[in-house]
């Protein structure tokens, strides 16, 4: 799943470790999410969204198309 976590983190001049500490996860986890190699759990996605004052949809973009 694509996301803009790296850009949001860069706006605040936070390192991956800083963001990981704020969210209670490791630097490796932040790196994996930013590289779209790992999709966070719903609780972690909510924590990320709250930390940046955004909605989950603002940060994460599910490129799968919903078929009616």
């Amino acid at each position: 799943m694509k996301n803009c976590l790296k850009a949001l983190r860069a706006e605040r001049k936070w390192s991956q470790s800083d963001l990981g500490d704020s969210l209670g996860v490791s630097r490796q986890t932040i790196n994996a999410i930013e590289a779209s190699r790992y999709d966070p759990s719903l609780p972690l996605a909510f924590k990320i969204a709250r930390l940046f004052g955004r909605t989950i949809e603002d940060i994460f973009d599910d490129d799968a198309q919903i078929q009616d």
Partner: protein
Amino acid sequence: MSPELATKRYFTIFIPAICAYAAGSAGVTWAVDNADLSTGLTYSLALVPILAIFFAFWAHWRFANEIDEFLRLIQIKGTLFGIASVMVVASGWGTLEMLADAPRLPVFWLLPIFWVAQSAATAVFSKRESVF
């Protein structure tokens, strides 16, 4: 908890447990071969490596609960690979024993096979995910 602290807590239990397992297994085997032990005493001594196995798995369980969700996923994948390796070896060799009279494989070796496969798989998955 940081992954570094969780790893330190893990190895603090796991390494002594594996050493106790290896030493206990060798010691009890030597004692059975070289001393006239009663059945009850043999069973009692065998509890040493058995308890060591329990503590090794408990340490791994605690470690998996103390790291975050992404690192836990890598551990779970490695553990599944280890279990699959044991099942393939055990079932495969069992089939060979049943159908082709292959020499008997002691089940003692299943645990070392599990830890080697689990460790190797976790290292590969960690490298692939740029964990180190």
